[in-house]
């Protein structure tokens, strides 16, 4: 029994890291509706920026964390300018191409600058705390908490604020948004800034929980993508639920099935879920038929 509580917690911790990545991912997806393949790589850069600030520039943890979010936001805006904006009116798959290319570039750049070595924050005093039968570290707590805070914040941003509605409007029809007086370039820059800052946060926290490698972005992208789709595209809380679901399923699944099938379990559940609900857990089927008029 105790074991199962810990298993569940393990799943929640893993889910938290996925959720963190998924929130930022769904932000960008919500505006541009393309698989932002570079998301994980941007998260990776964010992690390295935080790492450099903490271990090389001796910046305290929290300011370093925020600083990395800020700098990575700038990077996101730049990436959008260079690689996505010129393709705004091109087919979506063209943006997927440049997104993959951006991840090539970022991964390689970090490898050139920082080397391929595995890095770690070497945080002191990061022991795990035992609460009843459960073991959890402060970083892991922070991961879960941050992902929930980000989710609530982003949900509020998208549904309650003018910016959020403008983001959805841009996603729905860029020309019409322009004609309505919305400066779409500005909005999309904002989306990338926020999305990349969230990515940086996820990268840094994942890096603190485990370690950093220039190639760590790929798996972040994949898990975020899977979580977002499972939750139902364009749905912030769906993304988070999807992420926690994947985390929990993986971890409890591994208890019964050899861990070499860990990813397969996650994908299996994903496939099953989409078989039952082709538009994701929270995606609305009726909306998929919107155009039938």
């Amino acid at each position, binding site marked *: 029994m105790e074991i199962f509580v810990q298993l569940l917690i393990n799943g929640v911790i893993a889910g938290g890291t996925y959720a963190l990545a998924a929130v930022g991912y769904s932000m960008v997806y919500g505006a541009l509706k393309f698989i932002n393949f570079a998301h994980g790589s941007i998260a990776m850069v964010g992690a390295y920026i935080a790492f450099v600030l903490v271990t090389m520039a001796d910046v305290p943890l929290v300011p370093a964390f925020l600083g990395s979010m800020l700098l990575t936001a700038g990077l996101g805006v730049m990436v959008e300018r260079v690689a996505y904006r010129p393709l705004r009116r091109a087919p979506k798959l063209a943006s997927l191409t440049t997104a993959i*290319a951006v991840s090539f570039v970022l991964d390689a750049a970090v490898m*050139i600058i920082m080397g391929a070595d595995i890095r770690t924050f070497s945080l002191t005093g990061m022991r795990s705390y035992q609460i009843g039968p459960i073991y959890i570290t402060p970083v892991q707590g922070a991961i879960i908490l941050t992902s929930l805070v980000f989710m609530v914040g982003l949900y509020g941003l998208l549904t309650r604020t003018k910016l959020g509605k403008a983001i959805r409007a841009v996603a729905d029809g860029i020309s019409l948004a322009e004609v309505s007086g919305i400066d779409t370039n500005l909005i999309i820059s904002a989306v990338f800034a926020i999305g990349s800052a969230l990515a940086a946060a996820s990268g840094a926290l994942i890096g603190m929980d485990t370690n950093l490698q220039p190639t760590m972005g790929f798996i972040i992208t994949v898990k975020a993508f899977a979580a977002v789709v499972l939750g139902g595209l364009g749905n912030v809380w769906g993304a988070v639920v999807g992420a926690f679901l994947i985390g929990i399923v993986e971890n409890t699944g591994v208890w019964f099935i050899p861990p*070499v099938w860990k990813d397969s379990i996650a994908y299996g559940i994903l496939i099953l879920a989409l078989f039952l609900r082709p538009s994701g857990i929270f995606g609305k089927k009726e909306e998929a038929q919107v155009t039938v008029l």
Partner: protein
Amino acid sequence: MELALVVHLLVVITIYGILAISLNLVVGATGLFNLGHAAFYGIGAYTSALLVKAGVPWLLAVLASMAMAGFVAFIIGIPTLRLVGDYLAVVTMGLGEITRAVFKNWISLTRGPMGLPGIPHASILGIEFDTADKYLILGIICLLITFVVAERILYSPFGRVLKGIREDEAAVQALGKNTYRYKMAVLVVGSAMAGLAGSLFAHYITFIDPSSFVMWLTFFIFLIIVLGGLGNNLGAVVVTVVFVALREGLRFVGLPLWLNPAALQQLIFGILLIIATIFVPRGLIPERKVVYE
């Protein structure tokens, strides 16, 4: 570049060319966002390698590997082809990874991560394709056959239905076509072609292991068809040549050692990719317009 290297690269090009053409049928023509293509390539490779090692003639083995890849595609298609867009993408990505997990963990059959060494060269009726030069001839023949078949598919009334599905599946249904069957047909055919490529690969390199069939390969082929021009087979082949030449050509640039040449090659490749996509967002040779006199 020396001749032997050129011949080798040409063989690689024929194999990737077949992959590109086949993925193009599924993605470019029909609009099915399939991220699991590498799995069918792997199924072809393993089927063929295992059969030939068991004494089956290559010609039979390659047919079997195409049949096997097609059959698996059929099974996979049953639950997944109801899905659209990114939902399909994530599910095919998952199935691709599950397939790879099978290659990796069905050790008694595939030797798992240890890989399958000593695969005999391809041979037809006693003609051994045991040198790269001979193999190139075989590769070109297979590429040509694939090309011709794909062209005939694309520009047939059948292909017209595929394009219609890409544009608006529901509208095609309103015209009395069972779109599910068309999608299934093209997935099976495309996957069988990938199986052919897999067989060619296995008997060329003579060693296969699960790491040759990773998701990255699918993305790589994706880049090729997007830059080639979705729905254009010639573009796919031309860009395969350009890609392979460029990516491998960068090895000859003589980048300074202190700058980490391998990573720098990746970086340059990524930048070139971004530039190219921005210049030809619809691909090098956009889809050919079907003109009726």
